[in-house]
């Protein structure tokens, strides 16, 4: 396969050189102006030599395994295969490993019999693929070479190809997102076929470990999870992140000397780059015990060592740089004329901030806070390490609480089969979380955008 790619690349190089030579030769002795340089002709032919063949190989390598298996199934030995299911797939996969030499033993004697057939079919298919790719390379490259004429606009063609390549790159991101959403929707649909959507969205009892097959919805009520997520991510974390983020932004934009700003802003931004798992350690090992000790010292003897407060506090610290940088942007977007106008009235710096700058920057700040909430509710690592697995509907910050993301991780770890309501619930939770954060982001971005327009 690698050799084949090298051969095609070599053909491309040859195409580039010959096309370039031809272009140089017809430019020589002519004083006319050409729209394309020799290198454009070279590039044009090289691309036509390489791209179609490479595209074909990509498609071929994706479809080839299916064709190979299909051929193996026509082998007489394949008649002994069990008809459907896990065993059949296991034997085929074992035979494939044997044939490619990646495996040295086999549990199933049948796979040894099938291995030669596999190897033969594989080799045959590889040759067919290589032949077609080379033929394609020659055909398209040759066709492109015949178009190398003085009046041919290779430059424009290459430009168009560039655009197509860039478009493809951006489409891949969008299509991937749509694929993710589609898979989420599909699995969630399977879940909601087993569990009524009303039970899931409005039920207040969550214990996926004990599911009654007759009424699975009874223990899959997600309200305690939604509440826990909201309590930790949107209440406790924001109680930390909003004041500190906002005040640090005010200090950095309004009071800090350029030197202080030059030092403090990068340090604050480093905080945003700390991997969340590190915050997780911090929450689980340092903050959670401290919170519990504090609770015990003020008389709450039953305080959980996996309290909502510990996870929320650390999550808030994680979000501070985010809020601060959004608020910083919003404050910086308020025209200096506002600030000057207020100062010229005799207002002090802090009066100016409270009465003019913050109100003017408020929509941007609100948008930033909404984005921060959306990040906090989607945050996983901190709550996996520091939050509890027990879903409780509680207002007490010292009690244990769990979040949607934490439960998704719990549901998908372990050895559950992939079509039980317990596992499928993870997808339904994921879908709900996705919809919530999507809505939050849309609202936040609309607010921020409208605010930016007000000052442009």
């Amino acid at each position: 396969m690698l050799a084949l790619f090298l051969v095609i690349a070599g053909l491309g190089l040859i195409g580039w050189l010959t096309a370039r030579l031809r272009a140089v030769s017809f430019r020589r002795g002519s004083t006319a102006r050409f729209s394309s340089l020799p290198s454009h002709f070279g590039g044009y032919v090289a691309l036509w030599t390489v791209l179609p063949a490479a595209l074909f190989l990509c498609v071929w390598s994706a479809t080839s395994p299916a064709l190979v298996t299909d051929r193996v199934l026509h082998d007489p030995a394949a008649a002994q295969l069990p008809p459907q299911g896990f065993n059949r797939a296991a034997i085929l996969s074992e035979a494939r490993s044997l044939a490619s030499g990646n495996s040295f033993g086999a549990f199933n004697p049948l796979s040894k019999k099938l291995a030669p057939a596999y190897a033969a079919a594989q080799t045959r298919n590889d040759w067919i693929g290589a032949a077609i790719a080379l033929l394609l390379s020659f055909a398209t490259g040759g066709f492109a070479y015949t178009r190398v004429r003085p009046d041919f606009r290779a430059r424009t063609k290459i430009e168009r190809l560039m655009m197509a390549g860039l478009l493809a790159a951006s489409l891949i991101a969008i299509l991937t997102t749509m694929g993710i959403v589609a898979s989420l929707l599909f699995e969630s649909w399977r879940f909601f076929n087993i569990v009524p959507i009303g039970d899931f969205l409005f039920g207040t009892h969550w214990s996926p470990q004990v599911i009654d097959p007759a009424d699975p919805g009874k223990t899959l009520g997600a309200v305690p999870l939604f509440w826990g997520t909201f309590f930790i991510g949107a209440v406790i974390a924001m109680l930390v992140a909003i004041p500190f983020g906002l005040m640090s932004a005010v200090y950095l934009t309004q009071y800090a000397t350029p030197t202080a700003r030059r030092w403090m802003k990068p340090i604050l931004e480093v905080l945003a780059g700390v991997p969340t798992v590190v915050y997780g350690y911090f929450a689980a090992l340092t903050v959670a015990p401290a919170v519990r000790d504090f609770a015990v010292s003020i008389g709450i003897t039953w305080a959980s060592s996996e309290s909502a407060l510990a996870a929320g506090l650390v999550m808030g610290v994680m979000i501070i740089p985010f809020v601060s940088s959004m608020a910083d942007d919003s404050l910086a977007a308020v025209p200096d004329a506002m600030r000057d106008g207020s100062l010229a009235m005799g207002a002090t710096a802090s009066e100016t901030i409270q009465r003019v700058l913050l109100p003017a920057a408020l929509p941007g700040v609100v948008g930033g806070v909404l984005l921060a909430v959306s990040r906090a509710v989607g945050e996983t690592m901190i709550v996996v390490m520091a939050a509890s697995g027990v879903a409780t509907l509680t207002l007490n910050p010292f009690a244990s609480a769990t979040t949607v993301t934490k439960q998704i991780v719990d549901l998908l770890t372990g050895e559950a089969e992939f079509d039980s309501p317990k596992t499928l619930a993870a997808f339904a939770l994921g879908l709900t979380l996705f919809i919530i954060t999507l809505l939050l982001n849309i609202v936040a971005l609309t607010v921020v955008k409208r605010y930016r327009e007000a000052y442009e």
Partner: protein
Amino acid sequence: MSIPNQSKISAQHVNVWYGAKQAIADVSLDFGQDHVTALIGPSGCGKSTFLRTLNRMNDTIAGAKVEGDITLDGENIYSPDMDVVQLRARVGMVFQKPNPFPKSIFENVAYGPRIHGLAANKPQLAEIVEKSLRRAGLWDEVKDRLTESGTALSGGQQQRLCIARAIAVDPEVILMDEPCSALDPIATAKIEELIHELKGRYAIVIVTHNMQQAARVSQRTAFFHLGTLVEYGATSDIFTNPRQERTKDYITGRYG
């Protein structure tokens, strides 16, 4: 070059630096109580910088340094005893681009009185707001929509709102930094008319690069060039009989 007419503000040997760059070099100027004084000169000549030294707005610019004596009623405004909050209440300012706050028309005008505690109660505050808007010639246009946002007004109305805002704290001096440069001719005419009406009640210093405007609104004119004061005198003299060659070249349109 002082003019002996109960000078309200007196600047002696003022130098201003922005970092290492000197923006104003040894400028001495007196501003009369009853006069409108125009500061003219080509772009970048330092006239706005000089204006901003008079209410210490240069303090807000990092790296700006002011030297020399500037006194308001004989009090040095750069002395450590001077309260900047009080100074700016006495010396109001109107900016080049109208900059109403994103608040209601009423709140824009009430801003200063609230900060300085000038009104004991709501009716008193409303009275100050109405009086200021009347003096700024804006009352009749906005009296029915005081709760609407100040930024929704037209450019000329916004600028008169800013003047009303400055008047509301009852200043002694009003500094205007090219107040009409962002306005159309009709709005400009209204502002100039307003300046005529305010003259006498407040000492007014106006920066303009429009020489006709200087001739129309001011009694005293100072011509700045390259950070120095070239000539200062009665407006009629400056425009009809300049003593300096550079002044003559500028007002006849030779440069600028």
